[in-house]
């Protein structure tokens, strides 16, 4: 029944709300609202001071309009005025307004804090509660600053009323969450913990939330709460349902309090004290027992409350992970829930079992339910339940059931929600790799993954399969054959083409004997997909082609024809064009020996951690349970992937490793030095190793001073594009204010720097200026070195570098201290080098 309820009616408000509800259209509603806003505005501005009731009414209307979704930009002052009223309802509305429409005007904040302070010290419990509620609702830093010291005092004071204590506890919690540095518990710690023994259950309920949060941050200071919590819990659990009266909820004694106590205990390891531990274990057993008893009420509230306690108890048992019989009992209980009528319970059981699966005591017990879980995966109607089932399968996977689980997950993947596919793909990839006894099964699985969910197969996954194939001789032939067959499908995913291209390029010779997969057939197969692929894939295919020329000389002519055609050598993409041109040239001029050396089979990758795990962790967040944690202790040597979890930022690694030297530089570079993480030649930057944690650090642009000085060429050129002022003035040097005229070849000298990074920029009788620069992608660094050619020291040597206007924003100019230095002609070495400027610019 609408409208007037108890107390005051605020008729005007009810009428206004009715009007809004009767508006037939959005425009009408907006019109009505604007009308009201104008009315309220004029009333607020009006000469006549509004009485409390009207103010309250208008502020409430504004609040309503705001909650409808419209912006309100006035009324705060009036709301703050209401706070100082003595009338409870006016205060109440004022507080509600400012809690909902938080304003950062400092003047208002000061007034609000003042009003709150008055209410807190008013000794009127209702007013105090209002003030505390407001602080808890807003929880701003300013409030924390003003009240963080006051509230603990209220909380533990003997004369504070219970209801105020409750509000104070949770208010303090909110302030602690938002401004932990301002809430100093120090002297209050023991008394706050003591609240656990309070007579009033409401106070205990509120205080526990506070203590739980504080314990998480300062476990040592609050550890006395553990025994108190245990005794409280056991009193509740063993109480009859009539004992707790008001706090019994549908025949369940104090469910909220029980859950909170169990949560608090999860902040600590199992109690060391034998008596306390014994009591706690007894408690947990009682809870587990009660779950088996027939329900006292048919109402779902009863079972929910009872099960809430049960699930929290199970969480605690899992957290402790030290009582095998409790763990097994918990597992069995959850197993029962897996087939419960209620979807909620099935969902929660699946969720809890996931955490249970990682405990060594119960892992086996969890595995016994595999059929039920697989069934759930197939038959549950609710997608969130299915997802939980998939998570559980992942968690319970080990060597004995890996094949079965991976098969089930693959078939689930075919119909899975798009939003979860990427995660599923990563999981299947991890499982396949971890538990592969027979690597051909692994290859099959990954290729299936690509076939089913190609779009969601991230790079880490297919890089990994290639790494593994390259490292394991026994699976190379199988991989080549399987990939060949997979490519024959009419519509195959681009990732499949990438994998196929790479593998055939490396190992196509292993299946070339069979006429169905002869070299020319392989080439045609790959090339038939060429035009459907994106640029990086095409780049990979071009590399595969040059490898073919090496492997199968009979295909040389055909492939060269392809490389020669305009769409390759004049391709608009620089990378493709370069590859086509260079591969073509390479195939024409290189002797077979050279070609064979250059395109020799890829050496095995060094063992390293799988980055797929890192990616999965990143996706799921820090709370992920990892199968591999469990497996670590059981890992055999010699497996390719590591068990540990690492979290290098693979993107950063990729970008730092992906330099852009030309393919020809790579081909030669990789033979002479194969550092971990160097870009493998044939695939160019595609197969850049993104896995290595120990990869090269981001390219260091540090200058090798000695190297530079050795690099300096004989001074023969100068350049006048840099304005260098003030050089050469020294006391006893031959007087010359101006630099000597630049040497005649000035203009051509600058051209030299188109191809060279280092060299002499300018020279005259007094001074030599050299440049050393280096560039990586879009960043560059340039050093200018000034050499004194005279026999005396320069004094007051300063330099200025200026550059045209548009470059200004791109250049970071760093000036290091200069020091005097000697002439290279009077002594054999440069005593100290002077580097005065090094503009670092981005282009």
């Amino acid at each position, binding site marked *: *029944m*609408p409208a007037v*309820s*108890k*107390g*005051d009616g605020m008729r005007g408000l*009810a009428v206004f709300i009715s009007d809004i*509800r009767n508006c037939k259209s959005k425009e009408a509603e907006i019109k009505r609202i604007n009308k009201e806003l104008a009315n309220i505005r004029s009333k607020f501005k009006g000469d006549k001071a509004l009485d409390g*009731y009207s103010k309250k009414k208008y502020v*409430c209307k504004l609040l*309503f309009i705001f*909650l409808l*979704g419209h*912006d309100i930009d006035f009324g705060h002052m009036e709301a703050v005025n209401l706070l100082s009223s003595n*009338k*409870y*309802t006016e205060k109440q*509305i004022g507080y*509600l307004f400012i809690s909902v429409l938080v304003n950062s005007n400092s003047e208002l904040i000061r007034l609000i804090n003042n009003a709150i302070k008055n209410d807190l010290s008013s000794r009127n419990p209702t007013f105090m509660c209002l003030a*505390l*509620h407001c602080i*808890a*609702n807003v*929880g*701003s830093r300013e409030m924390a600053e003003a009240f963080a010291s006051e509230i603990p005092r209220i909380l533990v004071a003997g004369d504070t009323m219970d*209801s105020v204590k*409750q*509000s104070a506890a*949770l208010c303090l*919690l*909110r302030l602690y969450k*938002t401004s932990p540095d301002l809430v100093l518990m120090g002297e209050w710690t023991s008394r706050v913990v003591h609240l656990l023994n309070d007579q009033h*259950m409401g106070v205990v*309920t*509120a205080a526990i*939330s506070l203590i739980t949060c504080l314990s998480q941050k300062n476990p040592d200071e609050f550890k006395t709460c553990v025994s108190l919590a245990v005794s409280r819990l056991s009193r509740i659990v063993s109480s009859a349902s009539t004992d707790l009266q*008001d*706090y019994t*909820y549908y025949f369940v004694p*104090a*469910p*909220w*309090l029980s*859950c*909170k106590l169990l949560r608090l205990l999860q902040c600590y390891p199992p109690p060391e004290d034998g008596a306390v531990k014994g009591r706690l274990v007894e408690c947990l057993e009682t809870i587990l027992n009660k779950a088996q008893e027939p329900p006292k009420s048919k109402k779902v*509230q009863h079972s*929910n*409350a009872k099960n*809430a306690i049960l*699930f929290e108890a199970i969480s605690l048992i899992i957290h402790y992970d030290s009582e095998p019989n409790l763990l097994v009992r918990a597992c069995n209980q959850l197993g029962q829930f897996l087939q419960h009528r209620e*979807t*909620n319970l*099935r*969902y*929660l059981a699946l969720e809890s079992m996931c955490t249970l699966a990682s405990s060594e005591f119960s892992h086996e017990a969890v595995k016994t339910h595999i059929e039920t879980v697989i069934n759930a995966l197939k038959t549950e*109607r*609710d997608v*969130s339940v299915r*997802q939980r089932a998939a998570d559980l399968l992942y968690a319970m996977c080990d060597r004995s059931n890996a094949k079965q689980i991976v098969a089930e997950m693959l078939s689930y993947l075919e119909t899975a929600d798009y939003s979860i596919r990427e995660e599923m793909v990563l999981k299947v990839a991890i499982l396949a790799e971890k538990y592969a006894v027979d690597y051909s099964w692994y290859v099959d699985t990954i290729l299936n993954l690509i076939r089913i969910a190609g779009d969601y197969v991230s790079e880490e996954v297919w890089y990994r399969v290639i790494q593994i194939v390259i490292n394991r001789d026994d699976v190379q032939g199988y991989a080549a054959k399987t990939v060949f067959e997979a490519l024959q499908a009419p519509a195959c995913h681009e990732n499949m083409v990438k994998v196929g291209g790479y593998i055939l390029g490396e190992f196509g010779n292993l299946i070339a004997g069979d006429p169905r997969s002869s070299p020319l057939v392989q080439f045609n197969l790959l090339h038939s997909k060429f035009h459907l692929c994106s640029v990086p894939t095409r780049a990979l295919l071009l590399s595969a082609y040059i490898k073919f020329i090496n492997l199968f000389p009979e295909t040389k002519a055909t492939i060269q024809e392809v490389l020669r055609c305009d769409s390759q050598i004049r391709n608009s993409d620089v990378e493709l064009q370069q590859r086509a041109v260079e591969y073509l040239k390479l195939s024409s001029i290189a002797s077979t020996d050279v070609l064979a050396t250059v395109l020799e089979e890829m050496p095995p990758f060094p063992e390293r951690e799988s980055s797929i795990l890192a990616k999965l962790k990143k996706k799921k967040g820090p*709370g992920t349970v990892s199968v591999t944690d469990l497996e670590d202790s059981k890992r055999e040597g010699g497996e390719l992937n590591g068990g540990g979890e690492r979290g290098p930022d693979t993107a950063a690694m990729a970008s730092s490793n992906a330099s852009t030297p030309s393919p020809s530089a790579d081909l030669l570079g990789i033979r002479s030095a194969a550092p971990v993480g160097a870009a493998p030649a044939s695939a160019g930057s595609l197969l850049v190793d993104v896995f290595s944690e120990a990869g090269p650090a981001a390219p260091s642009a540090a200058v090798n001073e000695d190297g530079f000085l050795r690099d300096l060429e004989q001074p023969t050129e100068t350049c006048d594009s840099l304005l260098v002022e003030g050089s050469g003035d020294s006391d006893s040097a031959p007087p010359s204010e101006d630099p000597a005229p630049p040497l005649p070849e000035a203009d051509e000298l600058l051209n030299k720097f188109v191809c060279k990074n280092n060299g002499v920029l300018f020279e005259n009788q007094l001074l030599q200026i050299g440049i050393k620069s280096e560039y990586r992608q879009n960043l560059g660094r340039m050093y200018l070195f000034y050499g004194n050619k005279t026999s005396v020291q320069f004094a007051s040597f300063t330099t200025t570098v200026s550059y045209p206007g548009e470059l200004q924003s791109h250049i970071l100019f760093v000036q290091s201290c200069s020091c005097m230095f000697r002439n290279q002609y009077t002594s054999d070495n440069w005593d100290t080098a002077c580097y005065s400027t090094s503009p670092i610019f981005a282009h």
Partner: protein
Amino acid sequence: MQFMLLFSRQGKLRLQKWYVPLSDKERKKISRDLVQTILARKPKMCSFLEWRDLKIVYKRYASLYFCCAVEDQDNELITLEIIHRYVELLDKYFGSVCELDIIFNFEKAYFILDEFLLGGEAQETSKKNVLKAIEQADLLQEEAEVPRSVLEEIGLT
């Protein structure tokens, strides 16, 4: 708890209580998205779902959806009962509460919620105590009203 939303089957927000600091814009966006997600769910589906990095617990009572967002480690079943307890409180206070009650007395709904939950945590779980607190407040209200109307009756203000 991070926030609680009450909304109708048409997606109109009837109550929104935020326990974490978020800008207005973010709140609107979250409300919109979450309301859509929940309205899209079928009746027999379970009451829990994962949304962004939160767990959502929701239940429908007549024409209103009650929806809470809790953190990963929170207990879903007990949150479901928090919702139920809140509905019981509203029911006792308004007498057979319906959506209209909450629309026309929205400020009361907020007051009741504040007595029950504070800062996202259950403050007082005894139904009797919460209702007692609200009633006391109402009494104060009526006391305040009386002098006013008497004066008015006499015609002095």
